[in-house]
């Protein structure tokens, strides 16, 4: 089963991260504990070790690009696995979350 690796929250105040370096490329096998990428947070550039395992099937954020915490950083799974469905699901849940966000009262006002 393919799994999403999300942009980790590597500092208390981090809201988004920049991928400073990828240490793996699509097709590489990844073990838990292996260095996957370097991520620049609001504080420093941190090494990000994978805690998931599998073949790197998809890179969601290219080197130099910025993405919010929790967005798709990569997808790991078995070689040749189809990830289209996973990406599609992610899109639709994101759309739902956005709707909810609009309904919510503004927290900062209360």
């Amino acid at each position: 089963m393919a799994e999403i690796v999300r942009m980790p929250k590597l500092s208390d105040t981090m809201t988004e991260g920049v991928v400073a370096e990828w240490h793996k490329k699509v097709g590489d096998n990844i073990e838990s504990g292996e260095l996957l990428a370097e991520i620049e947070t609001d504080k420093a550039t941190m090494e990000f070790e994978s805690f998931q395992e599998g073949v790197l099937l998809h890179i969601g954020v290219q080197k130099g690009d910025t993405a919010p915490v929790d967005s798709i950083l990569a997808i790991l799974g078995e070689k040749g696995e189809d990830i289209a469905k996973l990406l599609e699901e992610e899109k639709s849940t994101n759309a739902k979350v956005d709707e909810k966000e609009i309904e919510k009262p503004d927290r900062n006002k209360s």
Partner: protein
Amino acid sequence: MSTTTIEKPLKNKSKEVLNFSKKQYLKWYKDMLLMRKIEERIGHLYIQQKFGGFCHLYIGQEAVVAGTASACAKEDKHITAYRDHAHPIALGVHPKYMVAELYGKKTGMSKGKGGSMHMFNKEVNLMGGHGIVGAQIPMGAGIAFADQYKGNKGVTYCSFGDGAARQGALHETFNMAMMWKLPVVFIIENNNYAMGTSVKRTTNVEDMSEIGKSYHMPSFVVDGMSVEAVHNAIEEASQRARDGEGPTLLDIRTYRYKGHSMSDPQKYRTKDEVEDFKDKDPVSQVLDTIMSNKLASESDIKKIQQDVKDLVDESIKFAEESPELEPHELYEDVYMQKDYPFIKD
């Protein structure tokens, strides 16, 4: 006393005469492996934002608390800093209550109101987890004073970091503790860094046992990567305390493999340094002793590893499924004094 320094690696394990029982080695292995594995998961849960607040991992330092717990008595008391996830495990608290505390759940050790840095448990006399660096030094002596005053038998184990050891309160505490011969063991969990500042950069007295000697406090350097060495040192120190001879200072040399907290890029040390310490890994050392002395079969070890994995999964599940606090609970467990004289509006 068997206070080998960290510079001397243990050799010829198989030729060693074992001073501890098979049961003790297996317990150490299981407890320390559980500390290690649960904290690895805790680190992952943190970066996935399953819980908030702070998170300081103990990975690498397991032998210090495991050796303390095996050498202490039931009535003894414990107080430590914010790096406190492993202490409840060593003292026999089910890890699910610690994980639930991280999650801020009602079922947590401190009713979900303390979080990562404030693990308390009355049954095993764990007097916290404290976030103020060094605050537990005078508090630990205070607990020991209370026991002495009331005629209780217990000894207090007061753990703090190499950074905390440089707080001024340590000196007043040491002076009084020696004056009154308090039943306390001061444990420096010396991992060589206070956040990113090495011991070398903060003092010209790198041997921290010297601090105690200036108060004529019995003080020793202990190999903190060896659970046996820690146990022996704690046992001797406790005996002194129980015999009414007062405090001991142990400079226990250990090492943390992970960053200070979760947002530490660790630019102050090399990767080689971390790897060198992994060669003396406390959990692997115990496993080596078990295997080379044939204290257990491979399948016994596999079973322990599986039990640990199950405990970790169970603990996380428990935390995730536990209820949140009710809003009214925010106003409970709060100390209030109507005529408090210091803050007036």
